[in-house]
């Protein structure tokens, strides 16, 4: 119920949700009639397990879509085994380390898991079958990434120190995030470049896709503090939290709220420092559906980061961005410029809430300013100002008499009320007046130019 109340309180988001529900159509809709039952089942498995991203994955262009779905399901299978505390290490470790080989073992399934996503493992033979139908180049990428992640996960499972004490240094924090998210970033980048959707130069700058993964993973780690603590998982690096408390459990206690919030700030600053890389990466994604697929999680992450910044509730509960906000972000993040705008808006909100009381005040300010600076390098204002001066044209107005004014007031008033009602309804259902105005303006200027040329 509160979900609906929230929507009413944020009409822009309500508008977004309605528009999405009523008008949205994928660029490349799936055609289930042409899909085998096996493939259909894979899409269903995706829907069961991935919740938020199933929709975005399904909108990808066909060839890559299948590769990404299978990559996702393979990783979900791997992750389910890793997360399952009921599987003893003697069983778990060999599976993790050889998971990339199991991908070609026809008919393999695993029935010993108690995790919520166990269905993927129980029907893994279907994944294996679809995997065998992929182009060899995609298969190789997925297998290699699976091998590296599986071994990385196994190393962490064997590391008693890590399991008992959690992440120690910031360097270890980056490495952990690399294993669980950076490698996924690399895999998706290679799939995307192979499919011709992204600029191949992305592969020459591996720190970019690593940052994409780290930014998402770190944001989740920051937000999920309380949930993870209840599960006895500690991902905040000790090198950071030990500056603010003697143990991570302290942060839940009211007397540690202030230092806990400061600790949050340091983690937020650390995550924000990945943003310029992420923005750089996004500029190199060429194909529209792939762009959306990459940009959406990123804008969700920056919105989440803004939500957790200086927010003491993170220490004692699970905070989440509103559903309406998500939908609005999904609708907006469809171009480089607009995605940058979203990032800039959230960074400015963070900057506005930043306070010198916080020991990380300057670091946060630098990190937000770096985002502004990066956007300025891609879209320089100097050029825009020049273009604007070149375009500017002011139409002259003629003076009106009192009579005309009276008539306008009488008849125009009625007209105004009616039309604004109509426009309001149109806006609510998704009319893009900004585009309409732009085109009217352009046409008008075009006519004015033509007229001047003739004289």
């Amino acid at each position: 119920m509160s979900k609906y109340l929230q929507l009413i309180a944020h009409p822009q988001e309500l508008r977004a949700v309605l528009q999405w529900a009523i008008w949205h159509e994928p660029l490349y809709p799936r055609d289930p009639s042409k899909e085998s039952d096996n493939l259909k089942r894979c899409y269903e498995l995706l829907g069961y397990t991935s919740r938020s991203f199933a929709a975005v994955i399904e909108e990808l262009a066909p060839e890559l879509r299948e590769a990404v779905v299978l990559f996702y399901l393979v990783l979900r299978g791997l992750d389910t085994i890793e997360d399952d505390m009921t599987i003893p290490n003697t069983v778990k470790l060999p599976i993790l380390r050889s998971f990339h080989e199991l991908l070609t073992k026809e008919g393999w399934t695993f029935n010993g898991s108690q995790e919520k996503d166990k269905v993927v493992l129980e029907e893994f033979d279907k994944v294996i079958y679809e995997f065998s139908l992929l182009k060899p180049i995609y298969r190789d990428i997925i297998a290699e990434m699976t091998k590296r992640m599986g071994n990385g996960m196994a190393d962490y499972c064997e590391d008693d120190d890590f399991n008992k004490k959690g992440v120690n240094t910031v360097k270890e924090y980056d490495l952990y995030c690399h294993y669980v998210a950076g490698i996924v970033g690399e895999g998706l980048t290679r799939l995307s470049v192979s499919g011709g959707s992204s600029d191949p130069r992305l592969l020459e700058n591996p720190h970019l896709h690593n940052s994409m993964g780290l930014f998402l993973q770190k944001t989740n780690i920051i937000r999920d503090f309380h949930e993870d603590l209840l599960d006895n998982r500690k991902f905040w690096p000790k090198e950071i939290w030990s500056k603010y408390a003697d143990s991570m459990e302290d942060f839940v206690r009211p007397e540690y709220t202030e230092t806990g919030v400061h600790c949050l700030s340091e983690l937020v600053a650390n995550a924000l420092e990945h943003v310029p890389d992420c923005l750089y990466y996004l500029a190199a994604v060429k194909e529209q559906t792939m762009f959306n697929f990459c940009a959406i999680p990123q804008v969700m992450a920056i919105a989440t980061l803004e939500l957790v910044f200086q927010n003491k509730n993170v220490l004692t509960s699970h905070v989440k961005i509103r559903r309406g906000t998500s939908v609005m972000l999904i609708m907006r993040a469809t171009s480089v410029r607009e995605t940058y705008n979203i990032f800039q808006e959230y960074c400015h909100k963070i900057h506005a809430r930043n306070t010198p009381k916080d020991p990380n005040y300057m670091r946060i300010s630098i990190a937000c300013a770096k985002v502004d600076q990066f956007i300025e390098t891609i879209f320089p204002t100097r050029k825009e100002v020049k273009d604007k001066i070149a375009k500017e044209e002011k139409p002259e107005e003629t003076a009106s008499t009192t009579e005309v004014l009276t008539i306008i007031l009488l008849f125009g008033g009625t007209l105004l009320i009616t039309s604004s009602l109509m426009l309001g309804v149109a806006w609510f259902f998704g009319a893009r007046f900004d585009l309409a105005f732009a085109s009217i303006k352009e046409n008008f200027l075009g006519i004015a130019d033509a007229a001047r040329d003739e004289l």
Partner: protein
Amino acid sequence: MPAPISSVLIIGGSGFLGCHLVDLFYKLTPRPEIHILDIRPPPALSPNFYSFNPDDISFHKGDITDPDSLRAIFRVTKPDVIIHSASPVHGMGKDIYFKVNVDGTQTIVDVALEQEFWSTIKAVVYTSSASVIYDGSDLKNADETFEFPEVAMDAYNETKVLGEQIVLSANGKGAGLKTCALRPSGLFGPGDRQLVPGMLAVLKTNGTLFQLGDNMNLFDFTYIGNVAHAHVLAAQKLLDGDVSDVAGEAFFITNDAPVYFFTMPRTIWAHKGYVPKFIISMPRGVGMTLAYLSELFSKMRGKEALFTRFRVAFTCANRYFNISKAVKRLGYTPTVGLEEGVIKTLQWLDEEEAARNEAAKKEN
């Protein structure tokens, strides 16, 4: 390995930047001979912030507008690199700016190019200023492709532009002299008499609650030690074999960390234990009007106005730079972060104040 420097002559070596230049050249191995040319000897410096032994440095009193004075010093010091960092402080007046920044620079370059010095003087590094491209409008992510304004904002900037042009056009002249210019922005650090002390002065007058503009404008402040570091790199590069991408070029030098303008004073105040309880922000237009009135009243009373339109504009403007060129070609990266720099500066100021109090006590 960069080419070793055998002797460096630091013109203006007794100044704010000069002392840090001496400090960093002193740390090089092998250590070059270090000579200072200035109108006054270097001040007594705290060993907590400068590591060199003053006895190892030679001071030469000289006049950079007098060719004979320069020749004599060049003959004695035999520098392979000249660092030209002499510049009058702001507020000295147009004539002094022209005399030092233009005439002085021209004389230095002319004498250095005399045949007598062809075999010794290989390179000149000029300390320019980021303000050379300032035309009154916002500088967002400005880089070296931005041109000088047609009309300079003030006499100081005008003379810095001319000085830079004199030095850069001397590149390749004589026996292949190599030159470059560095343009630092918003210097602060130990020895600072303007920026950080100015912001601390606001703390004393309770001006911390006021904010001019919306504080969305970015500004580059630069720690003095990083600027000195860039000079050392530039000198080494110019002495290296193939330097076609450095010689004859200008480089912006910053901390590579622009911040929203008020972040800087508020960080300084916070380190002094003070955080404003609330902020009264004043739109730029209101600020400009008040500044105009303040200038008017001050003029009527025959005093110099402290709250000026220039200051309002400065506080509300974007002034930040893209230093990719220096990063790529000089191999420059700031070694001291912004906040670390602030802490060092405040420690230095505390030490200065303690020393002053001590001296005052002794007098009593």
